[in-house]
């Protein structure tokens, strides 16, 4: 079972989002090309949700 990345979580919330994020630290997150920001809390929650599905 693989780890769900921040990028996968962000794309799950907004498939058109453009960004740069350090996979080891979500605090290094930059939104690109006028993408509407998503809160870190929502990204982490989505990551956890997807990870649960992945691990099932």
């Amino acid at each position, binding site marked *: 079972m693989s780890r769900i*990345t*921040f*990028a*996968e979580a*962000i*794309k799950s919330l907004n498939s*058109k*989002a*453009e*960004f*740069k*994020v*350090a*996979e*080891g*630290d979500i605090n*290094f997150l930059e939104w*690109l*090309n006028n993408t509407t920001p998503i809160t870190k809390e929502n990204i982490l929650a989505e990551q956890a949700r997807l990870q649960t599905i992945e691990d099932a």
Partner: protein
Amino acid sequence: MTLTVVKTTALTGTITNAQLAGGIDLTSKVTGTLPIANGGTNSTATTFVNATTNVTGALPIVNGGTGATSFAPGKIGQVVSLASSPNSVSISSGSYTALTDGSIPVSLSITPSAASSKIFCQVSIQARTVGSRGYGINITRSGTQFFATPEQDFYNGLGATDTVDARSNWLAIDSPNSTSALTYAVGVKTNGGNAVGFQQNSAPSSFVLMEILA
């Protein structure tokens, strides 16, 4: 040192040039050592000419003279390089954005020693892609792009769930015509704006600049 003339008959006084009109057989009639100044050998001296004061004119290049223009001098003026930290970063961007390790950009500064120099750039990037995703790079000099690839310069043509980890390398040459400090930076663009993971598995990116002298 002296010349010794072997006499065949008793002589007194000085031998005149006229008396030598028939010549001297040097192979048999001369003994002793001829002075070096007269063409003799066996010198033990190590210096004969003060080259700092007693030589004028240009010494031929093949004999150690200077001023040669036909040989090629060294061409690499300087080398600067960096390796990013191995921190992985995911980038999703339909336009070029700075490649970083999360916070520190892959960029270098260099000050050419001559305006005629060229800057040779080597970029090495490790990336993880899933099927139908890829990326390209650009290199900017102090904000001006001089090298760019298509956004699918590296492309994973496998299935949607097939992951590929691969290192790719690019070479570029720039003619900045400058002796000012220049900043070279590497950008990436992902095809279709899809996410690509860079510097995966503790594999840093690297960037090398070489100043090539004219």
